[in-house]
């Protein structure tokens, strides 16, 4: 559950950042900025997601 929540929040964060940057920046450098956002987004997913399983277990154990 935490994993799915993380994916939703992380995606929403980057969509908002990308949208605002795309609207505010007028020159073609925004394309390179989108690539940087994309790289950060995917790296975050690949690094953080597997670690959440441990956190998820601890939290469910605590709640149980």
């Amino acid at each position: 559950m935490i994993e799915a929540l993380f994916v939703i929040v992380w995606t929403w964060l980057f969509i908002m950042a990308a949208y605002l940057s795309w609207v505010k920046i007028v020159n073609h450098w925004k394309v390179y900025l989108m690539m940087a956002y994309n790289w950060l987004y995917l790296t975050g997913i690949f690094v953080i997601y597997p670690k959440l399983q441990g956190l998820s277990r601890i939290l469910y154990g605590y709640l149980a």
Partner: protein
Amino acid sequence: MAALSAHLIWDLTKRDFSERFAGSILGAIWAFIWPLVNLFIYIVIFGQFMGGRLPGSSDVYAYSIYLSVGLIPWTCFAASISRSSTVFLEKKHIISKVDVSLPSLLVFINLSEIITFIITNAFLFCFLVVTNYEFSLKLLLFPFIFFLQQILAFGLGLLSATLTVFLRDLKEVVGIILQLWFWFTPIVYVSGILPDVVRSVLVFSPTFIITESYHRIFVFNDYPAVTSLVILTAITHVILLASYALFRALEKDVRDFL
């Protein structure tokens, strides 16, 4: 540079999809028949009739799943690159008349191939449900690895599309490279059968890392190798950046040449 129009991209995607089956009686139904037939070949012919088994697994469907989760994304990846390599030449009638953003032509090809990929995967998931496959939260990583794969396809597609305008032979070279690349990726075989020397080189291939990640998630119920994926993400974005920078430098010449 012309603006990237979402409306134009969607319009081209729809047209590309409908033109593929234009004039046929069944029309868009063919878009569902083709993936179904492909999946039938992977699961029944390779997995059952030819008796393909995954080493160390007693599950009769393990090899079918192994094959399908490697082949379906590969088909999308290879088609995206090979079709992208000639897109500027094929759409020169549009490029010469309308001030269209050239990268958007690659976006529509990627979208069109992704639609086919989604349809095939929908059938694959139906098969998994029928065979009582145990779904886990690790499967949530699948779309992100696929997204990374398509960014790589886009980067390589943009590079080949730009260069093919000046060097027409490149489309044949792309086809040959993709064919060799397919057989040097553990899609129909397991990487364990490769000699150590070959394997030690192939682990640096982006498609090797991507395909191994699919297999780990779907077949071995394990997380993909995080370090490899993080390095691959960086390399993929460097390829995309370099391709885009090259395209920007040559864009005027590309338009003049067409």
